[in-house]
């Protein structure tokens, strides 16, 4: 590959994200003689970054990733000019015009929403995008450009998994169900916003005041009372529902006496910095027994209840994480589910993605190789590369030709999206929050129904407009003004910040099975239909590897896209090699 040094030095490059991939990428770009680099990252440096984000040191913890990365790179490559900002790429100032000022955009992002946002802006600005992702030893680099090849959203991405509320509340059968119960339901109920509705507000709980701290009640007494209700009488109540246990093992209630909570409650080290430490439980990899869990539960609850509400769950908040582990394990004891160590529970509750330095380094090299081709006008030579954990056909790094644009892609090909829901129950608020923002990553949606605007987003709205749209949020789709959004209605959705416009067709479906579709809606279109079949196949072929990741609720760190194409090609490759051997 012939490199034109002047061209490299001149090229204007935007590297989005200065984390795991970003640190390696900024280094590799600077070493290659790129002198015109812009980077941004919203995050600050955390201790758990230091095993791979090699531009950061212990003394940088708490500081801006983008700014420290810039400073560190300049020390070994003083000629590079790096414009570094602590910022969210979704901010309005990073608009189409901003993206147009770059020759190529390189993504080292950790969440699907931001990646989609950048993809849409690159399409609008017609700037080539190099996308990347890593998890553990696996990684990928893909190249996208408007019209010449598929965009990042031409293939379906796995959606975050959600769980039916009755499974979480009454019939859990996996550790993840207990962790989600602890974090999403009980933690929020006890320490979150008092005014938020909770699925734990069942009649008998309210009547008994099970979650309300009585006046003058000590933290530990309150905690013991919550324990007796949540892990004892609530379970006893469920046991009376015979239908529930016809095909399931019955849960076992716990008692305060059974777990050693009767009598005076003492901590061996009351001044310790968190609940478990107060009981001398120092090994984060050890699995606590039931009575240890009960002690941690009481101590953590007593500590958290003294804080000013609302407390938001944070996996790095020791008391919060220890509370979640204890609750999850006590529920596991109720339901005969294996208990987890604090370390493992934290991985689940925090959606922590496994990460090593080497994969990020490899991926950064691959990104720069594609970027070099792009700035030398060799788009035709760019390709996808997958980094595999176990070599397939001897290959750790598997190059693949780029995909063509998917004519059914709603993002780059204007294809229509179909929303299936019960229009008599599904509200406009659900449409905005769960569908447009939650599932389709639309950042600032506007929605037109016929000739009337039913939703707008922006700082420039009048107060009465905001009120009007908020009032509409509570209405069901079929009760919206103008005759109601019903079966067959087509809505026009627009996001000015992403330069993204598409049509959303609504299909009404009356009956919903909460077990199969806990969200109460389905997004599809011919594109999605087609890829669903392949996606299932992909999950099967990925089997063991993808299993853990399936349980991830939200993408938190460097993420993996279990790419449909990748699994398919791997599979092809395996078949091909079998043939060869035969």
């Amino acid at each position, binding site marked *: 590959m012939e490199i034109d040094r002047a061209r490299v030095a001149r090229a204007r490059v935007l590297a989005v994200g200065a984390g795991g991939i970003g640190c390696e990428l900024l280094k590799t770009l600077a070493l290659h003689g790129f002198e015109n680099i812009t980077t941004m990252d919203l995050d600050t440096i955390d201790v758990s970054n230091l*095993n791979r984000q090699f531009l950061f040191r212990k003394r940088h913890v708490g500081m801006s990733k983008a700014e420290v990365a810039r400073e560190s790179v300049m020390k070994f490559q003083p000629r590079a000019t790096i414009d570094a900002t602590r910022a969210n790429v979704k901010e309005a100032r990073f608009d189409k015009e901003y993206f147009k000022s770059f020759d190529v955009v390189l993504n080292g992002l950790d969440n699907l929403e931001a990646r989609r946002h950048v993809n849409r802006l690159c399409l609008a600005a017609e700037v080539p995008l190099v996308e990347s992702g890593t998890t553990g030893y696996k990684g990928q680099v893909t190249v996208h450009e408007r019209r010449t090849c598929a965009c990042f959203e031409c293939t379906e991405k796995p959606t975050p998994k959600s769980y039916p509320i009755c499974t979480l509340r009454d019939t859990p059968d996996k550790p993840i169900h207990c962790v989600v119960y602890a974090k999403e339901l009980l933690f929020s109920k006890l320490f979150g916003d008092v005014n938020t509705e909770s699925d734990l507000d069942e009649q008998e709980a309210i009547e008994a005041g099970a979650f309300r701290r009585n006046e003058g009640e000590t933290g530990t007494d309150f905690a013991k009372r919550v324990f007796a209700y949540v892990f004892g009488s609530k379970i006893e109540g469920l046991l009376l529902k015979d239908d529930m246990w016809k095909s399931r093992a019955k849960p076992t209630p716990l008692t305060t006496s059974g777990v050693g909570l009767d009598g005076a409650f003492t901590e061996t080290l009351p001044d310790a910095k968190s609940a478990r430490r107060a009981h001398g439980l120092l090994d984060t990899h050890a699995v606590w027994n039931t009575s240890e869990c009960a002690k941690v539960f009481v101590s953590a609850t007593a500590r958290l209840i003294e804080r000013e509400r609302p407390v938001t769950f944070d996996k790095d908040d020791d008391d919060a994480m220890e509370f979640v582990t204890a609750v999850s394990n006590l529920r596991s004891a109720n339901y005969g589910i294996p208990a987890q160590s604090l370390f493992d529970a934290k991985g689940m509750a925090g959606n922590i993605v496994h990460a090593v330095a080497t994969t990020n380094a490899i991926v950064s090299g691959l990104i720069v190789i594609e970027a070099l081709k792009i700035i030398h006008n060799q788009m035709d030579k760019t390709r996808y590369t997958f980094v595999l954990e176990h070599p397939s056909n001897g290959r750790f790094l598997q190059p693949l030709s780029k995909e063509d644009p998917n004519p059914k892609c709603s993002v780059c090909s204007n294809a229509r999206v179909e929303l299936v829901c019960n229009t008599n129950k599904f509200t406009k608020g659900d449409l905005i929050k769960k569908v447009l923002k939650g599932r389709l990553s639309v950042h600032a949606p506007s929605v037109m129904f016929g000739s009337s605007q039913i939703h707008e987003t922006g700082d420039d709205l009048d107060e009465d407009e905001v009120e009007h749209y908020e009032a509409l949020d509570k209405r069901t789709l079929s009760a919206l003004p103008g005759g109601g959004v019903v079966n067959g209605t087509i809505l026009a959705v627009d996001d000015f910040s992403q330069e993204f416009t598409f049509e959303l067709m609504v299909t009404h479906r009356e009956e919903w099975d909460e077990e199969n579709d806990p969200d109460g809606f389905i997004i599809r279109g011919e594109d999605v239909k087609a890829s669903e079949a392949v996606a299932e196949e992909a999950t099967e072929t990925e089997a063991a590897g993808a299993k853990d990741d399936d349980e991830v609720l939200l993408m938190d760190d460097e993420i993996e896209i279990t790419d449909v194409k990748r699994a398919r090609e791997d599979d092809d490759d395996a078949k091909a090699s079998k043939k060869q051997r035969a």
Partner: protein
Amino acid sequence: MDASVDRGGDRWASHSRARDARTRAMTLTEAEQEVYDRQIRVWGLETQRTIGASRILVSFTCTEEDDDDDRGEKNASSTRASRGVAAETAKNVTLAGVGALTIRNDDRDDDASAYARTVGRDGNFLNVERADEYRAMGREPKDVTLASNMAQTLSEMNAFGKITAEDGGARGKKLYEEDADYFSKFDVVVACGYTFAEAEAINDLCRTSNCGFFGAFTGASARYFFADLGDAFEYVAGSGESVAAGVARYSRMSEALGARAGANDWTKLKKRASKIPLALRVVREFERRHSNRRATANDWDALDALRRELAGAFGASSEDIVDEASIRALLRPENDFPAMNAVVGGILGQEVLKRASRRGAPSVNAFFFDLASGQGFVHDFTP
């Protein structure tokens, strides 16, 4: 989430527990667990402990490459590609939390060893500017060697291990001139930028001292490395219920790339397989016939004749079986290409860690990455 991996680790741990206990406390400190959290989720606690007890040497030289580079802008990213590969590999294994890492600069040129001369001039990103820091410590920056400046950067990346700098120049010998005792101080030796003959000598010394050997090489548009972990390298692979012990067989580089080795490679080459491994045999043979001088683009005529000669001698189906581009990819680089260093340094780092922890199936016995194909593949040269 990763409980299965941890259980696998525990089962496997009994192999190494005895040594582990000697060198290091059985538990990681809370500080170590915080820093290494994300990777413990990848390879488990036991592997992290073993990595923490491992002793690695990363040694580099670029005398075989064009080191006469002080000409400013045009050659600012110079041909000292092996320094970039060494820097990437050293960074990766240091971040992983190795117990001890020695970084060794084997270039005798005293002038080249003062770090400031090459800051920002090659792919060696461990060589950072610290003139003010050194002056504040009462040291003259020009007296600070390249290796010790790199070691300083590495030690900032790993607060728990011991990072040491070494200079072949100061020791008055090159790595391949050290004795077996020297090598017995390490579990793994990574040698970057040596000639084939030198690397083979280092490989032999590693065999004698029972340490793992990796030799990394740079070409015009390719990077590759050899591994020799002995005749029967025992490891454990898999996770959860499917944990299994395995044994990998390696050979010395000198045997794998010997003048008469590789007959099968020539005759049984798969259609779609890369020609680069065969091209390497041609380049290796060239150096054997030219007093171990590194082949450059100027040697094309001789290489062209040689590729045909070898194809004929080994009975290949065509005398054109090794294409020109594959050979040229392996010749001495005119310019560095840091992106390739990052790729090969990543895979090499992983293989070093597999050797150090005996966890995960190791690659036998060479890995190649080339720009033209974009493939990164393992090739077994074992005779």
